[in-house]
């Protein structure tokens, strides 16, 4: 378990991207990053801070220092479970979880490395089934994620029981307003393209 008090060495590389990441985070979230005074309450309550090399308070400090693309390689980005404990406990009312969401979106926009477990691939597999069927289709989502992440054997021993208990649906979902969902995905994509 890394120490939460000492050992915070931050290296700033000079080749910064033209548009600062901290500035983009401010634009997306409306959060005033400067109000963070490094009390580390977010890190104390974070369920994965003991597992990540860079806990949430350190991400905030790195944003203060206006780091470049190396921010997007921090392991916390894709280990963060979006539990929102950080936002709930921040004495300055900073929505740290929204900052993490913004960093993930920037990481995806800029094609940063997906990190262990490839969460962006999981999210994509999930949303692809939603786009197609209007609801999630676990079987297709799991197959697509497993193929892409080469985790073919993970959890296979549980499958027979899951199927016998009907905890995994074999057929895709029906009855959803697919037209509406496709419209939302299409419009969101158009907006994103216009935003760049």
């Amino acid at each position: 378990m890394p120490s939460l008090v000492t050992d915070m060495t931050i290296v700033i590389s000079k080749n910064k991207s033209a548009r600062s990441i901290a500035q983009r985070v401010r634009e997306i979230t409306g959060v005033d990053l400067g109000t963070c005074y490094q009390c580390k309450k977010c890190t104390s309550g974070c369920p994965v801070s003991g597992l990540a090399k860079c806990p949430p308070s350190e991400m905030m400090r790195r944003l203060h220092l206006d780091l470049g693309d190396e921010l997007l390689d921090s392991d916390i980005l894709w280990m963060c479970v979006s539990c929102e404990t950080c936002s709930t406990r921040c004495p300055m009312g900073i929505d740290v979880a929204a900052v993490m969401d913004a960093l993930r979106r920037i990481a995806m926009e800029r094609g940063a490395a997906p990190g262990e477990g490839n969460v962006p691939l999981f999210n994509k597999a999930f949303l692809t089934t939603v786009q197609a069927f209007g609801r999630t289709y676990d079987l297709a989502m799991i197959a697509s994620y497993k193929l892409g992440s080469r985790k073919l054997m993970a959890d296979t021993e549980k499958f027979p029981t899951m199927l016998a208990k009907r905890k995994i649906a074999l057929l895709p979902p029906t009855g959803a307003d697919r037209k509406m969902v496709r419209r939302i995905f299409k419009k969101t994509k158009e907006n994103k393209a216009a935003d760049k």
Partner: protein
Amino acid sequence: MRYAYFPGCSAESTARDMHQSTLAVAQSLGIQLAEPKGWTCCGATAGHQTDRVLAVALPAATLIKVKDMGLDLVVNCAACYNRMKVANHEITTSEQVRAQVAEATGRDYDGSVKVRHFLEVLLDDVGTEAIAAALRSSLAGLKVASYYGCLLVRPNEATGFDDPENPTSLDRLVAAVGGTALDWPHKVECCGGGLSMSRTDVVVHLTNNIVAMAKAAGAECIVVSCPMCQINLDMRQLDIAKIKGIRHDMPILYVTQLLGLCLGIPAHKLGLNKLMVPPDRVLKAIVNAA
């Protein structure tokens, strides 16, 4: 008591038992639930990690349908509940988000549909007295750890559910059906949620902490109200045994299953056979009310 009811995608897959037991309990207590026709996925964690507008427009698609029904919306999946509540919150607090959602969905929606968790309906609309009056059996002091996880209680300014650090809704319901609601420290710790497949290692670590703490507090079962919490705490006990060599054998029940049993609803109608850790000790503990 009539409400619109959003089952959520997991109701058709991993959490059929949550859905079945919700419907059975509702019927038993005279609560009418109507599914909005054509309801769609809330986007879940993948949605809000990907795009802000997508994250609000997806739940709004269903909220628009509910608005046309003129009813309050009841949700039992904590994750869907959270996304619906956050969508309403963002739409009512940001003109820009409201306009972007109107553009995405083709309908201007004002964020006014009242979204409620099924637990809130049970406690506030039905009430513990009416529930106690309808009971056929009692938990007879069974020691229950109430586990709320993240998405019911956080972010509290959006969900407004109970107390974000020490919620008591599940505990009150457990007490109402004759159980002993334990005071324990991991009520609102995170189970790892959507990382179940991508970072199973993280989820095994977190769920082991939670189940071990419940056990140390003397729990005979854990009661939950979220499909992600349920499957992580239940199914990942197999991995905890394999990886860490610890066998917890802790039954993880939906609160609607526990309540349903005490209302005299047969186990098969509550989907109890779907649990990975068999709830035998819970079934044995239940005694007929005098």
